Each structure stands twice: as structure tokens, then as C-alpha cells.
């Protein structure tokens, strides 16, 4: 074969910075999302002994905002993980407009604080094939991302007494370096399967099984407390558990900047 032909040239992988992440959502109707493995309620979540990650969902099954794996079976490229993080997200808005019975009854009992607190009683395990690479309490795995800031609401109308409550919870400070650094990176060979498991303690599962919600996130106020259905001015509240690896993948060289060999 002519050594100048493309097929004879040596192949070299390019290294690209690339995160891998996967999300579990909890909220009314989330269990109906096809091939997602999500949950309708905190109680459903509490029924699970292990919540699986990285081997259930794909980018095409749930969308690239929730998972960026091409395959749920195996990683299609060699991957080196330099850090890992577990995030928990709850809706910012709850108890938002007291004294509007339709909203209050559907948003007040969302119990977000309790849900977040249960992550003190959870562990996460990462496996490459059958090999346990990480097993740690989730408090040791800060996500390094999330909202930051301040909201000061008002209580202005003495008749309706609107109140504004705003929640912002992160697993650790939302600085991207605030993650568990793997001084000895986890190397994942090509075509190998990875899996993660979030494991709540018996105590946490007991609490979650008795927890109401998530219910409704209000987005505006009904014109009258006596009219309207909550979902007319809100959406079903959704909580998220997101696990991410930050690292680098090796893929075939592309583009003009790469050289052939």
C-alpha cells in the first residue's frame, strides 16, 4: 500500500476536555418519561435501595441537558476522570405566595429542605465494569456548580400578605474547582461499561418514603385567590440529582489543526 494514502498513515488520538454527566429527576409525571428511570415522588425514590447512574439513560433518550452519554451500555472512547461531583437541585420557589389557597396547598409541602438534608445520609459508588473505583458519602463529593446569590422578597399587601420564599441549595460552594479531585485519575478503557449507584441509608429512605412532593412551582399569581387551578400559573416541581465526571476523552483527530501522523 502506498505510504501516502490515508489508510497507511498512523492514527493518533486527540485528547479533548469532556464532562460526562447523568441526571435523575423527581416530580409528578417524571416516571412516565420513556427510558428515563425517573421518579414521580420522593416516596418512590425512597423505595429504591440503589439509584443507578451512567447505565440507564442516553443523550437521545432524555436530551443532552440531562445526560450526555451516547450509549448506556459502554463508553465509546477511552476516558480519564479527574474529578467527580454529586449535585442535588430543588426548585427555587416554594411557599411563594402565602394566603393563595390553591398555591399554598400545592407548593407549601414540598419539603425541599428535608430532601436536601437526606444527602448527608447517602453514599455514591462508581464502578468501571465490576471494579469499585469510588465509594464515598455524597458530602465528600461536592458538585462545584449551582446558583449563587441573594434574593430579598417583599411582604407588601396587608390583605393578601404575599410572601416570597426563595430556596438555593448546593452540595458545597458553587465553584467549579470545588469537587473531589482524583489525584490518581480513574482511567476507563474504550467500550467498557461504567455504572454509578446512589445509596440512601435506611434512615434516609424512611424519611423519603414519608415525604410529600414535589408538587407545584408557582410562576405567577392568579388574578383572584378564588379562581384558577394551580397548574395554570405554575409547573410541576422537579428536583434533580446530577452526577458528573470531569475529565478528558480520546477521540480520532479531526479538523485542519490536526496532523496526519
Amino acid at each position, binding site marked *: 500500500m502506498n505510504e501516502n494514502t490515508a489508510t497507511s498513515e498512523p492514527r493518533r488520538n486527540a485528547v479533548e476536555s469532556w464532562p460526562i454527566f447523568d441526571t435523575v429527576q423527581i416530580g409528578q409525571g417524571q416516571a412516565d418519561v420513556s427510558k428515563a428511570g425517573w421518579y414521580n415522588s420522593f416516596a418512590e425514590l425512597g423505595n429504591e435501595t440503589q439509584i443507578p447512574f451512567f447505565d440507564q439513560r442516553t443523550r437521545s433518550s432524555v436530551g443532552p441537558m440531562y445526560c450526555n452519554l451516547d450509549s448506556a451500555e459502554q463508553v465509546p472512547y477511552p476516558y480519564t476522570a479527574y474529578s467527580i461531583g454529586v449535585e442535588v437541585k430543588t426548585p427555587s420557589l416554594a411557599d411563594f405566595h402565602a394566603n393563595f389557597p390553591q398555591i399554598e396547598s400545592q407548593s407549601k409541602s414540598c419539603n425541599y429542605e428535608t430532601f436536601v438534608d437526606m444527602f448527608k445520609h447517602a453514599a455514591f459508588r462508581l464502578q468501571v465494569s465490576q471494579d469499585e473505583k469510588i465509594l464515598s458519602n455524597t458530602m465528600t463529593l461536592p458538585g462545584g456548580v449551582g446558583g449563587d446569590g441573594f434574593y430579598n422578597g417583599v411582604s407588601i399587601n396587608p390583605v393578601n400578605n404575599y410572601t416570597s420564599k*426563595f430556596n438555593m441549595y448546593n452540595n458545597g460552594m458553587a465553584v467549579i474547582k470545588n469537587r473531589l479531585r482524583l489525584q490518581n485519575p480513574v482511567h476507563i478503557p474504550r467500550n467498557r461499561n461504567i455504572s454509578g449507584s446512589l445509596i440512601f441509608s435506611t434512615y434516609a429512605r424512611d424519611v423519603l418514603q414519608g415525604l410529600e412532593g414535589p408538587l407545584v412551582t408557582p410562576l405567577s399569581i392568579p388574578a383572584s385567590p378564588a379562581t384558577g387551578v394551580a397548574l395554570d400559573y405554575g409547573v410541576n416541581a422537579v428536583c434533580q440529582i446530577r452526577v458528573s465526571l470531569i475529565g478528558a476523552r480520546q477521540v480520532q483527530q479531526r*479538523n485542519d489543526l490536526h496532523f496526519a501522523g
Partner: protein
Amino acid sequence: MNTKYKNAVEDWPLYDSILIASNANTLYRGAGFFNSYQELSAPAQIPFFNVRNRSVGVQYCNMDSANKMPYVYHLQSIGIAVEAPLASCARDALPVAERTEASDLFFANDLINHLGFIFRVAQDEKMVTNARYLPSGEGIVGWGGNQTETIGNQFLTSTTVTNGVATNENRYPLPTPISIPREENIEGSLILSPYAREALAKMIGPGDWPCISQSNIPDQKPQAALIRITLYGVREVQQRNALHYAG
């Protein structure tokens, strides 16, 4: 000619923004701007870096061309800022249904959890992630106390919510920079999940700033929410100025 040309490397951020404000499309001439949160719910994807150029104003975009990169660029970090107005309207002189703070807060802190981001160089996907993983390292920080008295029957709530802690180093790093050849086109796409679109369709706002005119007549100006995507890196351009030598 035998003269050797050498590129100079310059630190050069690139950014592109969408503005969401009443009449943003007409009043502020922004290509691809939106007049309301509700309007933002219509597209399944929101494109960046291939729609606008600096003609929309250098405050919002510093691309020379919307079609291709005029220089070689080495991208070292990406950040996405989602910013609601610093103050939200709470006006008891108007129907309570026009209060916008719930929508503003959802936009500032919840929406991004349901946004995907894909960055492409030509047709090549260089980044596929949830937008939350790309903290911008930017934003207003501080604290604002609201008052209990009224100004023209208008109340303001205070919001300083940012995507991650607003320190410049808090951005998604690319230890292996993404190198973009000259004259190549790039694109960033924000992808809205069905949940994000449902929520946006039900949101009201952004509202108005309450302004007191010089004649003491209450007036209103539109508040603006925005999404700004920033690329930090270096560009390679031809040597200029006396400090450079010819070869």
C-alpha cells in the same frame, strides 16, 4: 516575497448574548432577541455565535462576523451567564397577576438546570453538557434590602443570583484547549427541554423598571433579562505596531 509572517497571540474573549425585554427586537435592534420569556419558549434551540455580530452593540456581542472566525482561536474556557433583572417588579397598583418576581427567579436559578449546551466547530461537537456545568464567573454580587414604603405604588424585590460564584476563575476549564481554525464557523446551541419550554410559556415578564421622571411623574422602562455565553482564550493575528518585528 520572502518576508516571514508570524502571528501574534492576544488574549481575546468572545461573547454573544440574547436579550429578553419588551420590544427588544425592535427597540434594541437585536437579531435573535426576544420580547418576553413566553417568546423564548417557542424555539427548541437558541443559537449563539452564528447569528449576531458586533452590530447589535459591543455590549452584547464582539464577533466581527456571524459566519466564520476571522482568526485562529484557542478556546480555554466556556461560561454561561443567565441573568434576571436585579430588581423585579411588585406593583400593588396593578393586578397582582402582573408581578414578575416568580418568573424572574425561575429564569435566574431554575431554568438553567433544564438547558443543554452544544458547542460545535464546523460540524464537530466539541462540548455537550448541561448548561449548569459552565459557570460564567461573572455577575453582580452584594445585598439589597427592599423597603416597605411605596414609590409610585411600586415595590421592588432584590435579586443577585448568578450561575456559580461570581469569581473570574470559576469557569469550566479546558486544559486541552479547543483550537478553532481561521475561517471556520462555530456555533453554540442552548437546547431547551420540554419542561423548560413549558415553564417559559407560563412565565410573565420581564417587567418594567419604575422610574420617576424629572417632572415627578411615574414612568416605566423595560427590564431586561439576558443569557450571555463567553469564550475565554487567545487569538492569533498578524503582528501589528512597532513592538513587533517582521521576521
